[in-house]
């Protein structure tokens, strides 16, 4: 069965008694109430007084008393390029899913600034633990975007090397990676890699919904009790699938940190400069032994939760329109034009590069080979288990039988 579906099952094709062709029921009229919309907008359009911002939605550079950053025009262009390229292959992923090339895609649309800011703050020796939406961080860690395709096409569970890239595999069980990251950060500390400018740090990514999980709490406990160099980077994109932030908390999430005795900062997650500045500061604190730090990047999931999700069932388009005005790429573009003489040639160049990337991404996807059945049993253990080996031999022998006698492939009792 091909991985065309995630939450929407395909109709199984392997059974003759099956005449089902319909998908799930069409979206019903269960729309949000007016009150909910108003509450939602209020909650999500403003980050509040504590929001760290360096670039306004209008592209204006503002200062902040505690966090600032000095970037050259070239560096600003690089950040812009990062965001455009990442958005481009993200959109391509969506398209590939629509065309049946991927089982599912998890879009990051709208979260580019949060991720590129955080990702570019990381250094080579640092380690990142993503959730499943961190394609932008993957990009910053030097992964080729095509390496992300296997998970969504169903050919692997993550193909890159976490250790050489400094980018752990995607973690799907919400919250698990927070504890894994805390442990890794403890290891950095035990290895003597914390305490000076050359220190190492770990950054873990999770969503607003994930903050409810016990594991994220325990990661905060462990991180603080072991003074681990751990930056907890929460992308509050306002929604956990269909559930708005108010289903997880009464108060802004960054305020959790104080209860564990470390700093929590709410940053404008659509402002790549602020995300970079706050992330750099947090990582520096951790490198010097002053971890952990919690960052809440206040942002918005502009697309569906995944390609199988239908956000019109639970949120109104007004909300999206409000957030479009805060687009992370657009504000940097305006800023580059106004303050840093970026001309059309630059934008054309980035555009061309992103087209190339998209084409390559696409071609790679089409050419991906089917994995071999033996892959089911490969690397289950570092030291092979005779039980698994026996099951492998049995299945491969059975499949070989078909290869030799194609007539038997339809089964039958002899």
């Amino acid at each position, binding site marked *: 069965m091909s991985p065309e579906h995630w939450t929407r*099952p395909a109709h*199984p094709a392997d059974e003759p*008694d099956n005449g*089902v062709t319909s*998908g799930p029921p069409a979206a019903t009229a*269960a729309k949000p109430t007016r009150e909910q919309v108003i509450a939602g907008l209020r909650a999500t359009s403003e980050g509040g007084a504590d929001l760290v911002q360096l670039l306004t939605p209008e592209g204006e550079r503002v200062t902040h008393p505690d966090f600032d950053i000095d970037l050259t025009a070239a560096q600003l262009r690089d950040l812009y390029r990062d965001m455009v390229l990442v958005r481009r292959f993200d959109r391509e992923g969506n398209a590939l899913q629509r065309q049946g090339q991927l089982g599912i895609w998890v879009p990051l649309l709208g979260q580019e600034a949060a991720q590129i800011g955080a990702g570019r703050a990381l250094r080579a020796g640092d380690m990142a633990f993503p959730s499943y939406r961190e394609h932008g961080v993957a990009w910053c860690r030097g992964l080729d975007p095509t390496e992300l395709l296997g998970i969504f096409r*169903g050919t692997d569970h993550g193909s890159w090397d976490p250790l050489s890239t400094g980018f752990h595999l995607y973690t799907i069980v919400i919250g698990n990676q927070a504890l894994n990251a805390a442990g890794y950060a403890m290891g950095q500390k035990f290895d003597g890699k914390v305490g000076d400018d050359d220190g190492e740090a770990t950054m873990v990514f999770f969503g607003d919904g994930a903050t409810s*999980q016990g594991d994220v709490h325990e990661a905060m406990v462990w991180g603080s009790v072991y003074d681990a160099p751990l930056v907890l980077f929460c992308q509050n994109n306002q929604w956990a699938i269909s559930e708005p932030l108010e289903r997880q908390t009464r108060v802004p999430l960054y305020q959790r940190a104080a209860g564990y005795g470390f700093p929590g900062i709410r940053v404008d997650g659509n402002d790549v400069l602020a995300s970079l500045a706050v992330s750099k500061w947090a990582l520096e604190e951790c490198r010097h032994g002053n971890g952990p730090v919690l960052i809440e990047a206040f942002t918005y999931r502009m697309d569906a939760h995944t390609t199988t999700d239908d956000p019109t069932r639970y949120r109104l388009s007004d909300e999206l329109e409000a957030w479009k005005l805060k687009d992370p790429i657009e504000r940097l573009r305006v800023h580059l034009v106004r303050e840093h003489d970026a001309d059309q040639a630059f934008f054309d160049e980035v555009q061309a590069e992103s087209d190339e990337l998209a084409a390559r991404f696409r071609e790679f996807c089409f050419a991906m080979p089917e994995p071999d*059945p033996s892959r089911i049993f490969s690397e289950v253990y570092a030291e092979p288990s005779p039980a698994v080996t026996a099951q492998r031999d049995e299945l491969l022998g059975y*499949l070989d039988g078909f290869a030799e006698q194609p007539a038997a492939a339809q089964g039958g009792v002899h």
Partner: protein
Amino acid sequence: MAAPAMERTDVTNGSARPAATQTVTMAKSLNMGLRSALEEDPKVLVMGEDVGKLGGVFRVTDGLQKDFGEHRVLDTPLAESGIIGTAVGLAIRGYRPVCEIQFDGFIFPGYDQIVSQLAKLHFRSQGKVKMPVVVRVPFGGGIGAVEHHSESPESLFAHIGGLKVVSCSNPVDAYWMLRQAIECDDPVLFFEPKRRYYEKAELDTEAQPPPLFGSRVVRRGTAATIATYGPTVPTCLAAANAAAEEGTELEVIDLRSLSPLDLGPVFESVRRTGRLVLASEAPPESSITSEITARVQQECFYSLEAPVLRVTGFDVPYPPTKLEKHFLPDLDRVLDAVDRSLAF
């Protein structure tokens, strides 16, 4: 335990169609089951991630929050221990929560509350505290999903004293079994074969359902017995049909209840056929199919003409889904096992 009613051996082919009958998918019949339960008993609650406005990622709870309100149909915070743990508390308070776990692989953060509280409170309190909680789990593979979305963890619950575990295989059972599970005063793990959610059948909501905790012969046969449950029931029925075309009549039993197991009909069948094949998507090691094998070899020792054979997933993490066609028992693998059994 008595063998359940066997009148309707083919649930999809009712001949006369009474007024209360309609063609529904399993997702819809589950939705109807929840709706009736919410209507009839104000203590019934539906709770889980995205079960409210969204109606669940499979739309099983579609429209329920709209009609019954946010205090009957709860979009909970994102934490499975919290879902089960608060359901336990609500049950102590006299509610009958029906929890949805979004996918099989996400039940594990809630496993502790299930094992330590949900399963044990009735025993611990010697019946003073009842635990009428249903935990609905869309389970199994075949939908081309990413990791953790295709697992079959039912054996991990069957092993726990104090829990009951059932699995439906068709829309009719889905409706009745869910209603019966909600009426049951014990905690019931309710495993729904997600890749069958959109298969259809005729549902008569005024029929008399067989008992919840009983297995059922869904096809009569003489050559060998196949016992299975959940998503592989249609697979095995299809295999039996294919075998019948070649003249081999296989008996197929839908186990329905996985704990307690109702093996009476299996024993009876095996005593006639002398051969048993078990099919399940779950990894075989220390599983429900191991248990059935252990009990059949004991009860039918002198009747078995071949060892009990199993057609299952493998003892590995669920593979990337381009490979799941090889992982999941299909018609061919079932018939291959039948052949091997007949060859003894």
